[in-house]
């Protein structure tokens, strides 16, 4: 089986909000709404730390980190359980999605979600630009919407937009059921947490903290959509040895992955995409 999940390396995250904004663009998210937000772990405002400024010569106790937060795509998703019309459901590949035609706007799911991941279109959604943006149809007034792991991209063999457009390579997407996938390897190797694990929601979003990972291993002179063939686990291991440091700009990230993985591990359903 396929079970998609996301690893976010908070040691790499630089809090730039590129994931939040590219999500809006890719998914036609209306003004006033975010499917994906970058929270500051620290003070009361974005980009402020906890603690107080050290007195001259004293050691600092200030602390700050970033926590990008969207739908956690829980295995045991409370939103799925409470939906009275089965509008919210879990796909075979583990992605939690909403059938907007079925949604009656009762917002039980919003009350049930402990991650505040969902938004509701109280008003007629306003798009900027007016005709909308991205590759996903707009949702109407009166429904709840949220992150889909960019399922329309995943079905094309592409990583979610937030993953591709992270300038710090802090987001890694892949199949948690595939033991050779980067997400699985990172979860095995690095210290990870999931949000509110005590709620029993079994989220499929993992946060690395402590030791920094090599980040997303996508390194190629080609865009994902241009890649002719995707390596199997065995030939990606071969690539580890050839990953050198010869100096080409495009090759320079070879040291920048755990096993020299040349590309992400979204299985190709078909080629294409507009990346």
């Amino acid at each position, binding site marked *: 089986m396929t079970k998609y999940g996301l690893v976010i390396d908070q*040691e*790499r995250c*630089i*809090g*730039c*909000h590129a994931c*939040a*904004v590219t999500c*809006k*663009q890719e998914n036609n998210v209306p*003004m*006033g*709404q*975010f499917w994906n937000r*970058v929270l500051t772990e620290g*003070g*009361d*405002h*974005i*980009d*402020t*730390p*906890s*603690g*107080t*400024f*050290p007195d*001259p*010569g*004293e*050691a*600092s106790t*200030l*602390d*700050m*980190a*970033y926590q990008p937060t969207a739908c956690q795509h829980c295995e045991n998703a409370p939103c799925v359980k409470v939906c009275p019309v089965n509008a919210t459901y879990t796909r075979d590949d583990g992605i939690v999605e909403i059938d907007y035609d079925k949604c009656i706007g009762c917002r039980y799911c919003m009350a049930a979600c402990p991650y505040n991941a969902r938004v509701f279109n109280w*008003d007629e959604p*306003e798009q*900027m630009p007016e005709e909308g943006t991205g590759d996903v149809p707009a949702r109407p007034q009166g429904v709840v919407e949220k992150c889909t792991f960019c399922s329309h991209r995943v079905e094309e063999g592409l990583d979610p937009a937030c993953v591709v457009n992270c*300038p*710090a*390579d802090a987001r890694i997407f892949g199949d948690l059921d595939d033991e050779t996938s980067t997400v699985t390897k990172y979860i095995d190797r690095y210290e990870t947490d999931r949000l509110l694990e005590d709620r029993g929601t079994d989220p499929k979003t993992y946060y690395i903290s402590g030791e*920094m*990972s*090599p*980040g997303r291993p996508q390194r190629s002179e080609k865009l994902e959509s241009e890649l002719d063939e995707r390596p199997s686990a065995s030939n990606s291991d071969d690539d580890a040895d050839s990953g050198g440091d010869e*100096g*080409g*700009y*495009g090759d*320079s*990230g070879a*040291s*920048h992955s755990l096993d020299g993985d040349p590309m992400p591990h979204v299985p190709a359903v078909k080629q294409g995409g507009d990346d």
Partner: protein
Amino acid sequence: MAKSRLASLFGGTTDGFFYGIDTNVGQGFHRVAGNLWGAFLPPTNAPTDWKNCRTIIAWGSDILRSQFQMDSEHFLEALRNGAKLVVVDPMYTTTAAKADLWLPIEPGKDAYLALAMMQVVLDEGLHDEEFLRARTTAPALVRTDTGELLRASDVSAAGDDESVVAMNSETNDVEALAPETDGSYALLGEYTVDGIETKTSLTVLKEHVDGYTPEDVADVADLNPDDVRTAARWLATRGPGGILPSYGVGRYIYGHVFGQAYAILMALTGDYGNSGNIHNQHGNLWGGNQALQVGDYTSPGTESESVSASPTTGVGYKDVISAIEDGQFDVIYAMESNMLVNQFPDRKRWIESLKNVDLIAWADMHHTPSVQHADLILPAAHWFEKEDIVPSYSHPHITYRHKVHDPLWEAKSDYWIMDKLAAHLGHEDAFLGDKHEELRMLVDRDDRLDFEELYEEGTVEMDYQTIMYQDEFGTETGRLELYDDAPPVESGPGLDEEVSLELPKPLEARTDDDYEKSDKYPLVFMQKHGVFRIHSQYEMNSWVREVNTEPQLDINPKDAKTRGIDDGDYVRVHNDKGEMVVKAKYNDGIKPGLINTDQGWWDRDYVRGHHNDLTDSEVAEVGRTFAFYDTRVEVELAPDDVDTSNYTGGNPVGANAEKTGGD
């Protein structure tokens, strides 16, 4: 390029970055390392090499917020490989949050810290003797009587006037220093040569920095002396490392002294020419190879008989304002710039000066604050609406950008406008009149490129140099010059007397506690470059404005509470020059005594005033650079009658396009 070509046709004047904005630290560095490209920060190893760096000192740089686009992955890779990260910043930034050691320095004290680190390196004998002998003037002898460097002609009739000399401790004789002569030169000590008393340059430097122990400096700069020692030891002993400044320190008026100081500090630790060295915060020019090489296209001269060209005069930004005030320009043609009325310091003075200009024509794709001061507005096409060739300073590629959309409404490309302007000025042949063909002609001038390949591929990687500073330096001696016996003199604001800069000496203007108005205006005002703007660009981006809603004032709660300011109150920031009204944002990460509003906001975004109504356009002798952060202010609660409805009224759903005025 078309702009410069057009200006050259009629002897026009163009503005020049050379001296004006962000050229301060580089000027100081260049004094030590010599004749480097451009006026900005010095060359640095390619970011692909940064992973080999063992110690990174990010100095006044929040690289992960202001310069992250291509380089954050390389910066992070260095950290993952075990580099120690030291961050010197009066603000606890995103970059500071990832540091092994954060030095929360008092604003404007950076040169003190650099001197203290030199003191530690020399006092503990951590300096790189081999490097100092081979590639610096550390062994060059300085005359005790005149303070001048001993020259070859001083000690030998056959010697020349230029060469400096050093004492060879094996032969006990002096030798002229060539760029990389390898000798057993004495680095420290006093020597009498032909009856002339001398000491080595390194000795003079050591005596100078002995006045700046970590204890002395910790007191001035609010630091812990142990932290200063740790930073110096990491840089000197952990293998190749580097100092990565941004333009921040250069936004104090005498920031060039820091440039001089850190160039010398890195000379002491031998951090030039090795894999793993870093000298500035961005990928720089990648060896300069990614610029299109077009010969004399921008100043045609004799190339074409049909084009009679006059030389273009370039005026540095610091001189533009007085030139406008003096009525030197009848016409200003401006394009792709929001500097005059938004980005330059002392904004009101610029606005006033524009009254001396008969005609101002402005081509832009946005209705910026500057455009609003034009007599003629020319709607320019967006870069997606025209084809072009794009070099970059942040990656080593030349890109062919294809047009993806026709220009909307009446917008025209800047090239189209230039071509028509040239024709009206009697230069019908100046441009081909067809952008595509003009681009082909430009690429044909560059031997490294093939037009069809660039056009088809879209992006071509150019050769670039990974490790910088492997060849002789651009100084007179070909070496890093630690001691300058013909130094510039500073006599600007805040200085009681003239100061000559043989060696780096900490100089301050308004950040100095003794500054005459420090009681009246106790707070230093910084305008950080944040993640949501490139200069003032993207102010109108409604998606970004949902995150970055309005200008705010980072203020330490201690400073706020003594002024009766609550988190979220609107406050008036003011000094003798002007004011701005913004929302207070409690931030425990900003040093008490310092406040910040990110730059790049437009006048319409302020409840009242503008951040550049508070800044000054004075520059220093050496740096010749606007000193935005060398600004003092006071903060108080905004008057009750200020109208904040732009932000507090209405339906707070996102960034309302009407309110932010964008499209």
